[in-house]
């Protein structure tokens, strides 16, 4: 400390830094890791991704004897293994929104944008940190769910499937990829809407409300539109079988990545243009 006794003095800073994308990524990692709500949401997402398939496998196994041949034929081991993704997408989607709207609701965004006034490095860093975190957690989770459910179903030869079976590994990895991309999509939604409740409502509308509504349309219309919605495009990333009215895994992934890129681009433009 410099200055005379009795006075308050700000310690001088010996090293002077500058803002870089890598440093902003580090900062965003600290932000993500130091919130109790984030840790809980991610924990719940992992729990659902693993727990639900194990539960379904156990129920299927115990009821196998009383199931009709028709019912048995409808059971697919990968549907069971990836059942958790359908539920954990809620946790990941909501968390993606909160990563940014939590800053708006608390006022933290003002501090963030004062430290990084060029703004876009913060958005890229948030997207990268959240995407990598989600993927790193979800990839082991979907494999644990696969092996775990296969172990529970080991007495039923018809429900056994190998990782080397065509498309199986791709589909399982696809579950983690889907969740990662969904997180980026809802982060972009949160940046555009800036309000937690509003962004979650838009997320729910796009992924859970609009798709079933399309069943009201004439079948030919429905078949022409439905496969191209974000929800269906994303789903085809982690589906083993693809019907005549759904996209293949490659084009589904490309389309879903396209939706994410579009949402992120809109988010970038509004983040730059609007008053914080």
């Amino acid at each position, binding site marked *: 400390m410099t200055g005379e006794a009795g006075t308050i003095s700000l310690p001088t800073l010996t*090293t002077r830094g500058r*803002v870089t994308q890598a440093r902003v990524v580090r900062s965003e990692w600290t932000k993500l890791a130091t919130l109790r709500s984030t840790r809980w949401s991610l924990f719940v997402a992992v729990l659902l991704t693993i727990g639900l398939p194990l539960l379904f496998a156990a129920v299927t196994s115990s009821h196998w004897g009383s199931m009709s041949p028709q019912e048995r034929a409808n059971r697919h081991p990968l549907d069971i293994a990836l059942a958790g993704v359908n539920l954990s997408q809620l946790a990941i989607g909501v968390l993606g929104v909160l990563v940014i709207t939590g800053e708006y609701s608390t006022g933290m965004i003002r501090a963030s944008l004062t430290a990084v006034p060029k703004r876009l490095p913060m958005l890229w860093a948030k997207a990268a940190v959240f995407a990598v975190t989600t993927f790193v957690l979800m990839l082991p989770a979907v494999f644990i769910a696969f092996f775990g459910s296969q172990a529970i179903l080991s007495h039923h030869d018809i429900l056994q499937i190998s990782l080397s079976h065509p498309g199986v590994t791709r589909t399982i990895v696809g579950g983690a990829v889907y969740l990662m991309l969904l997180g980026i999509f809802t982060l972009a939604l949160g940046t555009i809407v800036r309000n937690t409740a509003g962004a979650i409502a838009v997320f729910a509308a796009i992924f859970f409300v609009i798709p079933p509504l399309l069943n009201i349309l004439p079948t030919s219309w429905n078949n022409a539109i439905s496969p191209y919605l974000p929800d269906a495009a994303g789903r085809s990333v982690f589906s083993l079988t693809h019907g005549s009215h759904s996209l293949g895994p490659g084009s589904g992934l490309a389309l879903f990545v396209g939706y994410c890129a579009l949402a992120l681009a809109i988010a970038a433009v509004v983040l730059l243009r609007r008053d914080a």
Partner: protein
Amino acid sequence: MIEANGLTKDYGSKRAVDGLTFTVRPGVVTGFLGPNGSGKSTTMRLVLGLDAPTAGDVRVNGKHYRDHAAPLHEVGALLEARSVHTGRSAYNHLLALAQTHGLPRRRVDELIDLVGLHDVARKRAGQFSLGMGQRLGIAAALLGDPHTVMLDEPVNGLDPEGIQWVRHLLKELAAEGRAVFVSSHLMSEMALTADHLIVIGRGRLIADTSVEELVRTASGNVVLVRSPQAEALRDRIVSDGVSVVSNAPGLLEVHGLPADRIGEIAAAHGIVLHELTPQQVSLEQAFMDMTRDQLEFRTGELVTADAA
């Protein structure tokens, strides 16, 4: 150093900041004074580039805030609205900000000690009292050892000891050669800390002056006179540009004539004086008068515009 030039900001049809031009110089504490809602906070948001100006321009240390490679070294800011995630601890909040500039953890510890938050640094900021929140905000502002320090109502919510601490800190920061820009809606607070004052009302600049100059101008020529022959004196001094108000028998308040002239006139006419006191208005009063004038002026202007 902050340089605003014709700075203007509209929110919808409301003009929050209206053609502000001023300079905040290094080495002194510049008080930014105005009633609540006069545009102080908006001006500070414009300085930081959080909001974009409708017209005009503001630069810090020669550049737009956004164009600085290391903005936290240029300006340290405490905004009036809370800017902390309530779920994160004070330590992690500061750490996340420090990391954007590659500052070490040691720096975060230094600032936490400086503002006296050592015992609560690991507590979530949402549990902080208003005063603790202000201290955390000040720590964030000083993290980058900035050339310019900008604080919006820093003593809000602080206890008397905390207020003293902030006053000392501001003076110390200015003495170290930094530009210190601090807002308040309380003239009395500014009188104790500021060397220079920028006064605004309804987003417009009212005064850009030193504290002494402001009091002198605002006081005008008001002299209190007590005399047993008050009526006689009144008749002798009332003229063009001089007005006299009498609030009690034998007591005159003379506007527009200095005390020495009143004394000479009284002597020339053999009038006995019991008291002859030039009045100095308080800073508070000066501020009230100024901002009231501003409001009346605005209203008058609108009426004229309508009539035209």
